[in-house]
Structures are given as structure tokens and as C-alpha cells.
């Protein structure tokens, strides 16, 4: 399925992406087994960038491995750990390695991770990274210096459709569109009615929206996310549904819920696709796809 992600977006097909996390350490066997399992079942695989501010193998190398294994990588790039020199340098490197899709993120704050005393960089934020991608594509760097060879990327960004208040979030969404975002992978959505309201607004823009699907693995996880993860709201009925799962059947219930949501999003044309985040449970992504009828 090694078609470029830009072509997939243009095709009008229902787009499916999933997420793979690099290891903490040099043993890449598990990451490779996840890539191998998923690369032909989804259109592209995101490689996270020191996700949750936890130090790991770089997303750039992870994407290179996806590419080598015949998959389509989406390079996640945050501004938390690199200044504008390092970010641009990594973008040039990605391009040379044939990685042509980048997701531009501000990044979780460093205090949420496992190196709390480190210096948070934040030289560029999500919007400015998006713009840097476009500036590089024009043949110069952020300092205005000409490039010898120009990288071209399909650039994406994120949005939180269930943020409260939503208005400032939407204003930033628009700025990201103007800055050249071609697709959005959203924060996890669970309340499709709220998501539909967001889509009614987002549809006015010429961008593809992939609804974020996070796999619920227990009622406790759902409650935890409600209390601790910004922008994620799991409605009571889904928490109860997870709680109603027989002992040992919570994961299966989560797969069923994720599959059901994806099916509904596709059948009702609510979004252009989905982005599945099965944090730590990548091996069940095929089951989710099957439950969704994909």
C-alpha cells in the first residue's frame, strides 16, 4: 500500500492512519513487529516524537524504518526538544530519506514526562513549524538563506474538537489551515455529536480531517482520561459500557466501541478518515479495523 499519503488524501478514500511509538532503548524488534503488522492495513503510520515528553528513539529514525519496511510514515515533529535549526535540519534529513509527510506539533510540556528538569525548548510552536515546512519548500530556510535542494512535504496538524472553550481552539485551527496544513489528526473523540458540530465548522475549509480514535482498555482508563487528559471527554454511557464488560473482556469491549465509532464515522461521512491511537495495544489495531468493517 506504499502510495504517498498526499495521494491517499486526494483519492477521496476513507483514510485510516495508526500510530507506532519508538522504543526507549535500541531494541527495535517490537516496533518492527507493530510496523509489519499494520503497514499494509492502514494508509500511513505516525511515528511519535518523544511522546508524552518521555525520551525514546527518534521519530525520524522510526519513520525511516517504516519506509524501509515498505510502509508510509508520518513524521511527528514537536518544538519541545529542538530549536529552529534542529527542526529544519531534521526536515531536510527526513526529505532526503524519502519521508514526505510531517505532523507539526507544539508538544506536551516537558514536566509531564520522564526528564522533568530538562530545558523545554519551544523555539517554534505548531503553527510556526507548519510555516517553516512551507518556507523550506519555497527554497529558503527561516533565516532567508537559499537551499541547495528543496524539501516538499505534505503537512498536517492537530486540533482538539472537544476543547472547552472551543472558540480559541477553532481560531488556531484556522491559522493552521492558512499556514498550509493539508490534513488534521484530531485529539481523541468519543462524543460524536460534539464532533459533528466541530465538523460542521471544519468542513468549510479545504483540509482533510481524521478523527482521533483512542482505544479504551478499561472503565478505569476512561475515567482517568476524563480527569487527567486535556481535551478528552469519554461520555458516561461509554464509561458504563466499558464497566459492563465481563471480567477479562474490557479490551474486547474497547475494540468493539472503537470499531463501532469508526464504522459510524465512515458510514455517515462524519469525517474524511480516522487516526487510531491504540496506545500500547498496537497489536489489536487489526481487530479494531475488522470490528469497523474495514
Amino acid at each position: 500500500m506504499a502510495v504517498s499519503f498526499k495521494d491517499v488524501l486526494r483519492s477521496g478514500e476513507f483514510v485510516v492512519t495508526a500510530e507506532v511509538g519508538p522504543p526507549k532503548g535500541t531494541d527495535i524488534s517490537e516496533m518492527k513487529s507493530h510496523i509489519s503488522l499494520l503497514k499494509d492495513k492502514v494508509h500511513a503510520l505516525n511515528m511519535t516524537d518523544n511522546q508524552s515528553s518521555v525520551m525514546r528513539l527518534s521519530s525520524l529514525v522510526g519513520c525511516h524504518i517504516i519506509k524501509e519496511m515498505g510502509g508510509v510514515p508520518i513524521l511527528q515533529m514537536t518544538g519541545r526538544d529542538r530549536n529552529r535549526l534542529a527542526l529544519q535540519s531534521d526536515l531536510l534529513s527526513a526529505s532526503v530519506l524519502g519521508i514526505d509527510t510531517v505532523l507539526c506539533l507544539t508538544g506536551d510540556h516537558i514536566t509531564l514526562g520522564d526528564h522533568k528538569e530538562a530545558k523545554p525548548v519551544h523555539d517554534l510552536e505548531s503553527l510556526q513549524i507548519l510555516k517553516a515546512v512551507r518556507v523550506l519548500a519555497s527554497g529558503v530556510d527561516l533565516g532567508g538563506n537559499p537551499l541547495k535542494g528543496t524539501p516538499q512535504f505534505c503537512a498536517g496538524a492537530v486540533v482538539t474538537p472537544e476543547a472547552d472553550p472551543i472558540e480559541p481552539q477553532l481560531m488556531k485551527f484556522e491559522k493552521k489551515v492558512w499556514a498550509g496544513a493539508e490534513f488534521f489528526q484530531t485529539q481523541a473523540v468519543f462524543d460524536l455529536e460534539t464532533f459533528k458540530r466541530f465538523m460542521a465548522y471544519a468542513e468549510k475549509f479545504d483540509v482533510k480531517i481524521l478523527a482521533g480514535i483512542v482505544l479504551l482498555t478499561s472503565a478505569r482508563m476512561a475515567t482517568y482520561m476524563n480527569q487527567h487528559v486535556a481535551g478528552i471527554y469519554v461520555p458516561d454511557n461509554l464509561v458504563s459500557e466499558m464497566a459492563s464488560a465481563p471480567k477479562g473482556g474490557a479490551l474486547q469491549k474497547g475494540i468493539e466501541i472503537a470499531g463501532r465509532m469508526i464504522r459510524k464515522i465512515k458510514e455517515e461521512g462524519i469525517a474524511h478518515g480516522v487516526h487510531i491511537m491504540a496506545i500500547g495495544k498496537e497489536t489489536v489495531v487489526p481487530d479494531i479495523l475488522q470490528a469497523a468493517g474495514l
Partner: protein
Amino acid sequence: MIVAERKPFDEIKTALAGCRKVFILGCDTCVSVCMAGGKKEVGLLASQLRMSFKKDGKDIQIDEDTVERQCNREYMELVLSRLQDYDLVVSMACGAGVQLLADLSEPLQILPGVNTRFIGMTPQDGTWEERCRACGNCILGETGGICPVTVCAKGILNGPCGGTDHGKCEVDKDKDCAWTLIYHRLEKMGKLDNIRKDFPPRNHLVQCHPAKQVHEVYKGE
């Protein structure tokens, strides 16, 4: 103003081991207002040290005074001659004051008595909040008088990140999300379009350390 907090007593006391005569020099400007290094705090620290050393059976002379402003040469010159016979001077000023003291009293041994924390204001008695990062390029006129460089944990200039949650910050649920505050303030001002503006990456050149500024009138002197 500059906000500082006094160093832990044990850290100061340990650093004074081996001294016979110690002078504690306070600063009656910023660190006095934030109750860290003014006349009162100098008196308190001096008494604590005297009692503690006495209890340990150590004979260490502790003297004290407080100047108007330790970061200002003319105030410091009033006190310098009195410091010469001491083994060590504990400066209760901010880092700038400590350094002017060290420069002017070289080679006298210096110990900072406070940790300098931030430029802040006093929303209520006894509380200080950081409100300025001295970034050298003020955009408060665009953001409703709320500084995103300081109040946003990530210093974002172009609107909220995904970590904002019901007006709070992902870093700490007790901290307000700067961009939610800015949004509500600009809404009241009828200036919401300011958020739609494109703020380019910050120019860190204007903040190149150590920064220096010379008033026009004094240039060429």
C-alpha cells in the same frame, strides 16, 4: 519587581563553616517587598544564625545592615568600607545585587542568601506571580495585557495548545491557561481579531545574554 526566596537556613549555615566574622547585607528594594532579603529578613536570619552557632558552641560574629539598592553603585559605595574586615558577606539581594557587591568588594568572599526567581507582581498580599520574562519585544498590546511568553508554560504566541482544559494548563491544574485568559480579555475589549494575527517566531537576538543597555545621553562617554 524581582521576586526572590530566601535560601534554606541549613544551606546558608553550612556555607559559613570556618568563618569568624560574617556580614549579612540586605537590599531594601524588590527583595524587601517580597519578604526575602529586606531589613526584616536580614535581622531574622542574623538572629537565627547567632542562636544556632551559640547552641553549637561556636563563636562567630554576625553583623548586619541593609542598603537601599544593592544593584546600584552609589548606594553600595556607602557600605563597602565597612565590609573589608569580614571573612564573608551574605548578600540578600537578587543575583544582580550579589554580582555588583562581588565586583565592588573583590576579593571578598560572597554568598547569595536568596534564590532569585522571577519578575513578578503581587496579586494579593504574600503572593507573587511571574508576569514578565524580559523577552525584549513586548506584545502585551496585542494580547490584552496578558503575557503569553510568561503565562503560557510553552510561551506560545499563536493561540492555545491542545493541553488546555477548561481554562487550565496541562502543566498544573491550578494554573490558568494563558490563551483562555487572553481570549476572554480580548473578547471583552472587542479585539478578538488579534488572535487571528500571525505572530512569527520570537527574535532571541534581542535577548542575547548578557544584555546591555546604554542611555542615549551617556553614549560616547
